[in-house]
Every structure is written in structure tokens, then in C-alpha cells.
């Protein structure tokens, strides 16, 4: 019996001594002090050295994509390490192409911070953040669309995005959902307004987030959003612009237009905005005003379900028919399309028939 107890004690003792030694070593030997990380030659972070770059960046709120959680197997967490990364490790070589080798691309989960680093990460990743926001303003734009203005709560935070991009809005759990849910919404505000953003939220039947926004959300409520995301945004060129939107698809288009107004751009721009009836139109006043402020801008609303005896004097067709009618074949155009997937797909078909180069056609499908 005593033999048993002694054995257990001795083994535990040896284990404890070794663990203590390792703990001490970790504290004193593996102590790299504070290290500076210079990101894209402009932003500087000060972090505690000794851990992988991926995790240190994460702690600082910069989210490099990673699927394997830092084991060096998914190779999503590539960043350019310009200085201080040390030699490329054998654990990284299988995932790096010769070009990436040349450009100092590394797996950030394998680069341990031992000294000051200079790294380069895509601007978009750098901008994606989580924001606490407060409902600043909530109004009915149409019977089915709410305009939602969200103000970023933290004083020093602001959102940087390209006109046309979207954010993910998270709502708390309520009677329709047992977990917090999030959905993507395009921003209708333009980049200069970096403390407040505006969203258009359409009511979707049984939609968890849209129902919450329409029926439960009140001014003053706090929510969480992440962003910006998305590759649907305004592109510079000297071509004329055609914009096509239906329903809440107007949001990113408004963002682009407001940006163009701010910059006083003189590109010839036409907007086809399609809804069913007159009461579904919104932002009318602003869009009409825009025609005066931007002389090169034309606003063409079109209704698809308007009764024959209505007083409506504008276009009476779907947006697709408008393209057929008004856009000459082979036009040199940048096209921005946003709305339901069906609408976007039929527009793409018509544009292809009209021989408008697809590399100049940008679209965002709202599912």
C-alpha cells in the first residue's frame, strides 16, 4: 500500500518539477518583450512577442481568414511579411508558390513574433471590423421597406468602405430565432459619412432579421454589425454609367450616387429604378433633386403593375424592357445592377445580347 502511495507521489513530483521548469522557461526564456508590427507602412501595433502573428493580429481586431485555427494546414492566412519574419519554415513551403516566395508571402500562423515586423495585408481585411451600433432613426419608406440609420457607438470608431459595399447586421435572439442571426445589407450611405450608415430593409415573409427590424426594432436599440464586405462597388472610368435597381437594390446605388454627388462627377449616368406600384417608390425627392445637382444624371422610375387609369406619367414596364428599348447595341457602358437574382439574371442576358462587355458589368444579387 505504502509502495503505491510513494509511487504516485514520486511520479507526480517528477511531473510537477518538470512542469514548473517548463513554466519558468516559458516565462523567462520565451519572453520576447513588446514587438512592433508595422502594417502596410502606416499602422503600427504593439504586441507581446512570442505568439504566432495570426493570433496577435486577431487579438488586435484584425481578422486574417483561417480555417484550421493556426495548424498550418489550410493556408488561408497568407500575408506578406516584408521584414523580421525570419526564414521560411519547412511547414510553410508546401503551400507557397514560387511567385509567393518572391513576394515574401508567409503563413501568418507559422510566423512567430520574435522581433519587430513589417507586414502587408489586403486593405479590405484591415477594414473589416465589428461595430456596436445604435438605431438612430427608423422610418417607413414604403409599406414594405424600412429605412434604418445606425450610428456607431464607440467615439473613436468609424467605418471605411467603398460605395456599394455591404455590412452584416446581427440581431439578438427573439421569438422567431433561438440564436443571434445576421444578414447582409448594402449601405445606402456614402463613405464620407463614416459614423452613421443607412440601410434599406425590405420585409421578407417569415424572414427572421427583416421581421425583427420591421416589427421589434426601436430607435435607441443597440445591435452589432460587421463589415465592410463585397466586390460590388463604384469603379473609376470615363465610360457612361447605367444603373439598374429594383426594390431594396436601390441601396448600394444610392451610396454610389451620393458619392458621385459629393465628388461632383460628370459621368453621364442613367438610373432605371423599377417597382410594382407608385407607392413602392422611395427616395423620390432626393433622386429628382440629384438630377439638378448632377446635370449628367437621369432618373427613370418605371412601374410594372400600374393600372391603366392611374395618373402615372412615367414608364410602365419592367426594367428589362427599358434596357431593350433605351440602350443601343454595343454601347460603351459601365453597368451596375442590383436587386433580386431573377431580375439580375434577365438583365445580364439582355446586356449580353446587346454586346455590352461583361467585364464592365457589375452586379449584386439580393437573395
Amino acid at each position, binding site marked *: 500500500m505504502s*509502495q503505491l502511495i*510513494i*509511487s504516485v507521489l*514520486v*511520479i507526480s513530483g*517528477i*511531473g510537477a518539477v*518538470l*512542469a514548473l*521548469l*517548463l513554466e519558468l*522557461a*516559458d516565462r523567462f*526564456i*520565451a519572453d*520576447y518583450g513588446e514587438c512592433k508590427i508595422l502594417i502596410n507602412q502606416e499602422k503600427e501595433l504593439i504586441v507581446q512577442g512570442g505568439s504566432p502573428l495570426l493570433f496577435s493580429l486577431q487579438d488586435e481586431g484584425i481578422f486574417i481568414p483561417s480555417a484550421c485555427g493556426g495548424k498550418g494546414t489550410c493556408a488561408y492566412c497568407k500575408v506578406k511579411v516584408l521584414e523580421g519574419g*525570419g*526564414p521560411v*519554415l*519547412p*511547414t510553410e513551403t508546401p503551400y507557397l508558390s514560387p511567385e509567393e516566395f518572391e513576394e515574401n508571402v508567409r503563413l501568418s500562423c507559422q510566423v512567430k513574433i*520574435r522581433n519587430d515586423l513589417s507586414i502587408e495585408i489586403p486593405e479590405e481585411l484591415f477594414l473589416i471590423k465589428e461595430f456596436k451600433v445604435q438605431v438612430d432613426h427608423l422610418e417607413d419608406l414604403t409599406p414594405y421597406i424600412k429605412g434604418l440609420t445606425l450610428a456607431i457607438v464607440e467615439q473613436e470608431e468609424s467605418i471605411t468602405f467603398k460605395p456599394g459595399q455591404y455590412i452584416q447586421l446581427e440581431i439578438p435572439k427573439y421569438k422567431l430565432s433561438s440564436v443571434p442571426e445576421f444578414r447582409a445589407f448594402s449601405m445606402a450611405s456614402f463613405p464620407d459619412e463614416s459614423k452613421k450608415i443607412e440601410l434599406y430593409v425590405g420585409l421578407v415573409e417569415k424572414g427572421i432579421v427583416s421581421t425583427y427590424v420591421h416589427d421589434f426594432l426601436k430607435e435607441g436599440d443597440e445591435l452589432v454589425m460587421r463589415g465592410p464586405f463585397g466586390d460590388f462597388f463604384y469603379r473609376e472610368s470615363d465610360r457612361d454609367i447605367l444603373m439598374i435597381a429594383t426594390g431594396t437594390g436601390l441601396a448600394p446605388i444610392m451610396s454610389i450616387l451620393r458619392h458621385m454627388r459629393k465628388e461632383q462627377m460628370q459621368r453621364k449616368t442613367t438610373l432605371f429604378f423599377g417597382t410594382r406600384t407608385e407607392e413602392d417608390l422611395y427616395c423620390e425627392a432626393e433622386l429628382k433633386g440629384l438630377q439638378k445637382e448632377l446635370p449628367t444624371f437621369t432618373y427613370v422610375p418605371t412601374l410594372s403593375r400600374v393600372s391603366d387609369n392611374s395618373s402615372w406619367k412615367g414608364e410602365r414596364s419592367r426594367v428589362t424592357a427599358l434596357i431593350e428599348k433605351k440602350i443601343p447595341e454595343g454601347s460603351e457602358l459601365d453597368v451596375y445592377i442590383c436587386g433580386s437574382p431573377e431580375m439580375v439574371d434577365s438583365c445580364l442576358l439582355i446586356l449580353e445580347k446587346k454586346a455590352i462587355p461583361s467585364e464592365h458589368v457589375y452586379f449584386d444579387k439580393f437573395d
Partner: protein
Amino acid sequence: MDSINPLTLFFAAIFTNNILLTNFLGLCPFLSMSRQKKSALGMGAAVVFVMASTTALNNLVFYKILVPLGMEHFRFIVFIVVIAAFVQLVEMAVERFFPALYFVLGIFLPLITVNCAIFGASLFMVIRKYDFVQSLAYGAGSGIGWMLAIIAISAIREKLQKTAKLPRGLEGPAITLIITGLLALAFLAFSGMIRVQ
């Protein structure tokens, strides 16, 4: 049995009783790291260092702690824990103070924590009743022997890769094991020259 001279033991461990070619221990890293001479050299050097130091260290642990307490039967657990902790410590120290060495050697250190050749050397040390100096010599010799074998094989494999057309089933570990067998046969020529047991 008369106690064996440490120097004799050192050379015996390298040639006549090569731990890899006569006991076939430590085959896993041997197969995976023998593709290139450069990594074989790094791995080999790491094994030499770890084997020499852990065999000596375990000798102290065994005779100073386990034997007096009558706990010889616990040597398996204790040796593994000691090896693992020691390798961890060395890795941290090398990484901090000799970064250049770390990038050559250090990355191999975690790979050999659980290498059976390292553990085997510690167990042989007990069975064959080596004292401290003998253990050090035996550990260092075994490590060097292991390194010699992996360098030889990696050189052969590099050459094979460039010239030989192998049937697909024989590529990689298969042909490596066959060559290792032939090499072991060659080393058999040394056997019987020195008795280590």
C-alpha cells in the same frame, strides 16, 4: 561482465551496434526526413544532441531517484516525461538565444520528442547497466550512428530520384526500406568485433 571502456562503447554504438541499422529504431523520422541531404543533416544533428543528453540525464534520474526509491519499473513513464520536457526546454532556449541554429535544427526538435530511438537508447542504458560516462558515450555514439545512416540513405535517395526509374509501387518508403535493409547487411560485417553486452 567487465565494464566496457566508454570510448570503445562510443565507436561500437556508431558502427557495430548502430541503433538504426541493427535495432531498426527511429524509423519513422528516418523515412520521412531522408528525402533531402540538407534536412537529413539537420535532423541527424538534432538526434545526436538529444540522444546524448537524454541518455545521460535519464541515467542520473534512474540511479539517483528511481533505484533508491525502488521504483525501477516506472522507468518507462519517467523517461518519456523527462525526454519530452528536456526537448521542450532546449527548443525554447535555442529559439531564444540561437535563432540561426533554431531555423536549421530547432524545427526538428519537436519531431524527435517521441522518437523510439531516443527512448530505446535510454532503455538499453538501463538493461546494459551503463554508468554515467558510458551512458553519455553510448548516447552520443548512437546518435552519430543514426545520423550517419540517415545521411547515407538521403544521399542514395537523392541520386535515385534523379536517375532511377522505379515501378510506382516501389517509390518512396518502399525502396527506402529495401535500401536500408541492404545497408544493414553491410553493417553486419562489423558485428562481433565488439561485444557491448
